[in-house]
């Protein structure tokens, strides 16, 4: 779609896009291309010279067991947080949607965690599960469970999953509620007259109609778990214990901080970029389809 | 005040689509010119070329003796009323009217005087502080008018300004626009697809079709003497009955259906065929009396009667199976569906057109 009424001007439009273009080129394209270039280079031990090594950095990466473990951790973490936060949010949204009057009030009371920084969310949850003084971990100890996210990798994973889910439920709730409220009431009523009970109605009518929202949220949540949970992980477990909660993004950060292997770190970045681009492409294909309907 | 002169004006878009071809006419100083035609006939494009919102491909447009082809809209000394009014939604009524004056550096006191005066004339005095969304459709229309008036331009341009109003308001605003234009005596060009609006507003009517001018003239002249089939069918409501005719042994006879026309016109019909035009209001149901001198009589089968009080519309066929013909009779008349009636028309009320070229064939030659 194009505008019919436009302005004339040769330099003005360039002046108008210049600020954004310059920032984009300097801080997006330049570093991204640097990463791609470096991923094909290998530096010598002193960082003085580098040589082109083709895909060697990538081969090295995939030759190490710990990279696979990080991929596994990331996949497990993503799947768990996405599944939990989507289902909890959907459940709450269905309850709120039933209250025609209270829906907005409930929305206010449920959406605010979106605004809490991931790192702060991590701190809040860590405080509850701190082994010696955390209220929840003490309660669990009283019940006979020892809970120590600093030592036990399962406990640590559970902690970051809980904190990440806690933060993401509100966003999903918002979209599910909007999606539910967009379903025409007459469709539900028709199903009721056709004899479908509420639970059956939900799975045969409401849930299928909600599928565009669900799909959108699925992609967004996966991206969220990939990147935005960095703060949560860094504030609670710092990837530990024994790298049990190290995601791909966290690995790029911690490997880079240790320094040394610039090429390997760049190769990790490039793989991440490819993953994000693939996810976005999936999302676009879906949006395209939505436009056609 | 100024006259608007169009010379050989044409518009071809970058894609090669031609919207307007070789338009040529002069709107005299102070006249109200209406461009009318079906949608897509190029009338809006032509108006926008006068406004400077579209570039001119060929020919020239001049306003007040100055060729304005390369002049920016703001410099043409025109004002325009848009179909959707194009009021600035975030500005008050006052600011909407004052904006153009402020951009031109008109002194504050002068702006105030002009806006108040326009508001008085348009009865918008109480609404100056309101935002457009707080106004009714009719009020928005007035603000759009006011925005044009305060500028005191050489030319007013109207792009279907009444089409978003309901029928009653449209009639009311039509009268008002006419009154206002008369009192300001500003040259105006007005675009509409509504032939009734065109007839009632225009001093000068320009009928357009497929990017070309079909006919230019005073509204009643166009009604009485359409030069082309298109104008004949476009001007007048309900539209003129158009019947394909050929010359038979006893004069004219319709091409389709059984015979039904009595009386020849005494002229030669082109070999390619002709089309006879008779307005519904010029056909009269009669008893046994003969057709008027030089006129014609038809046999007419009534199929439906619509009595609306002041007049009666008859729908039916020429002969028993001929083309559809509509008759408009004043008052009420008795005619049962299914009956066959005799219908006559005067020679002066007949129009004959060449079926191939669409041009008028003079009956009085």
């Amino acid at each position, binding site marked *: *779609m194009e*505008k*019919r009424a*436009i*302005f004339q*001007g040769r330099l*003005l*439009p*360039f002046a*108008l896009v210049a*600020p*954004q*273009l310059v*920032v*984009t080129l300097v*801080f*997006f394209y330049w*570093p*991204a291309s640097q990463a791609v270039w*470096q991923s094909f280079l290998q530096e010598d031990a002193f960082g003085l010279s580098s040589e082109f090594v083709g895909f060697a950095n990538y081969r090295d990466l995939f030759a190490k067991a710990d990279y696979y473990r990080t991929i596994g951790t990331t996949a497990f973490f993503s799947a768990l947080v996405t599944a939990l936060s989507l289902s*909890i949010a959907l459940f*709450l949204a269905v*309850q709120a949607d039933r*209250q025609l009057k209270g829906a907005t009030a409930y929305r206010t009371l*449920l*959406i605010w965690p979106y*605004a*809490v*920084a991931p790192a*702060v969310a991590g*701190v*809040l949850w860590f*405080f*509850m599960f701190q082994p010696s*003084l955390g*209220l929840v971990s*003490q309660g669990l100890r009283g019940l006979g469970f020892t809970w120590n996210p600093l030592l036990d990798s399962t406990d640590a994973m559970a902690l970051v999953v809980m904190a990440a889910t*806690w933060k993401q439920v509100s966003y999903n709730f918002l979209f599910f509620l909007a999606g539910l409220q967009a379903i025409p009431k007459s469709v539900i009523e028709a199903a*009721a007259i056709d004899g479908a009970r*509420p639970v059956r109605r939900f799975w045969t009518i409401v849930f299928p109609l909600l599928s565009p929202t669900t799909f959108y949220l699925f992609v967004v949540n996966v991206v969220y778990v990939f990147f935005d949970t960095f*703060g949560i992980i*860094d504030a609670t477990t710092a990837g530990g214990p024994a790298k049990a909660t190290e995601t791909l993004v966290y690995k790029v950060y911690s490997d880079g901080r240790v320094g040394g292997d610039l090429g390997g770190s*760049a190769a990790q*970045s490039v793989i991440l*970029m490819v993953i994000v*681009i693939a996810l976005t492409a999936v999302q676009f294909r879906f949006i395209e389809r939505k436009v056609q309907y | 005040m100024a006259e608007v002169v169009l010379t050989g004006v044409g518009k071809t878009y970058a894609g090669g689509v031609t919207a307007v071809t070789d338009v040529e006419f002069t709107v005299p100083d102070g006249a109200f010119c209406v461009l009318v035609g079906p949608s897509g006939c190029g009338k809006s494009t032509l108006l926008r070329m006068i406004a*400077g*919102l579209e570039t001119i491909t060929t020919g020239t447009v001049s306003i007040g003796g100055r060729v304005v082809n390369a002049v*920016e*809209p*703001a410099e043409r000394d025109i004002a325009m009323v*848009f*179909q*959707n009014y*194009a009021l*600035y939604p*975030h500005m008050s009524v006052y600011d909407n009217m004052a904006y153009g004056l402020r*951009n*031109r550096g008109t002194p504050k006191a002068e702006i105030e005087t002009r806006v108040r005066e326009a508001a008085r004339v348009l009865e918008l005095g109480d609404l100056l502080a309101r935002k457009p969304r707080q106004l009714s459709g009719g009020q928005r229309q007035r603000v759009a008018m006011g*925005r044009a008036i305060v500028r005191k331009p050489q030319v007013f341009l109207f792009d279907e300004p009444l089409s978003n109003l309901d029928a009653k308001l449209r009639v009311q605003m039509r009268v008002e626009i006419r009154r206002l234009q008369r009192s300001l005596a500003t040259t105006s060009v007005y675009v509409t697809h509504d032939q009734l609006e065109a007839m009632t507003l225009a001093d000068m009517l320009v009928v357009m079709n497929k990017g070309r001018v079909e006919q230019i003239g005073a509204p009643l002249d166009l009604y009485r003497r359409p030069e082309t089939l298109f104008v004949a069918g476009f001007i007048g409501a309900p539209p003129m009955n158009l019947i394909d005719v050929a010359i038979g042994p006893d004069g004219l006879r319709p091409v389709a259906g059984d015979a039904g026309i009595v009386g020849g016109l005494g002229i030669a019909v082109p070999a390619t065929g002709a089309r006879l035009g008779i307005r519904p209001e010029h056909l009269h149901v009669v008893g046994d009396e003969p057709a008027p001198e030089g006129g014609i009589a038809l046999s007419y089968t009534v199929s439906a009667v619509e009595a609306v009080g002041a007049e009666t519309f008859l729908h039916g066929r020429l002969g028993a199976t001929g083309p559809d013909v509509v008759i408009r009779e004043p008052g009420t008349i008795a005619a049962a569906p299914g009956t066959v009636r005799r219908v006559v028309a005067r020679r002066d009320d007949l129009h004959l057109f060449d079926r191939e070229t669409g041009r008028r064939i003079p009956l009085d030659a």
Partner: protein
Amino acid sequence: MVEHRPFGTALAHLTLLIGIAILAFPVYLAFVASTWDAATIANGKMPLTPGPLFLENYWRTLFVGTSGTTRQPVGGMLFNSFVMAMTIAIGKIVISLTSAFAVVYFRFPFRMTIFWLIFVTLMLPVEVRIYPTYKIVADLNMLDTYAGLTIPLIASATATLLFRQFFMTVPDELVEASKIDGAGPMKFFRDTLVPLSVTSVAAMFVIQFIYGWNQYLWPLLITTRDDMQTIVIGIKKMIVTQDALTEWQLAMATAVLAMLPPVLVVIVMQKLFVRGLVETEK
């Protein structure tokens, strides 16, 4: 729902209230902790009701700082966070408004190329190219500066797309009326387009303010000086995960202070926030 079942309705309310309670519990706990003394928290016997030290703890947090390490008081961090969030939000809005204006209302060479260059950055969050970006900022001598903290995060395809979408819905006739009223492009931009965009701008502001305020990885890398830290970084540094001597009451007061501005923005501007989120979805 179609059925009228008072019991079902009550159950739904109950479920929602439980959900709200679970969401709010960590925050409530943090607030309670921020009103007790360190010892009460450290021995694990903290009551579930607020303690007596509300004013003292917040005073210390804001203006004094923790005692164990030589950390900055949180007041300065709040200021840094505020500068960062505001600069990012306003910067994004300004450069996105002008670039969307150029792309929609002008025809110029490479217009679509430039549009796509901006568009593709949707897919590249700062996290995936963190070290090369860091290196460029370091080369430009922008470490430990507000410019380094904000400018790399200012380019935003999201805002540009949103504004472009909004501009497309502005009727052409408004441009034409402006032209006839003698307004050039910048006058139209200032007098008509920007005033018409206020709702979109406000919605974008809410989203981007939160985005800026909650940044973590970037300021973590870019700031080395304590006085340049943002509050989200500061709180993390107050907690020594292995160490029971963390001054939890101050850390929790900091957490509450770090949450307050963005949460307030979301709640007060809820309508705009929801609109901003939903519109960027498209």
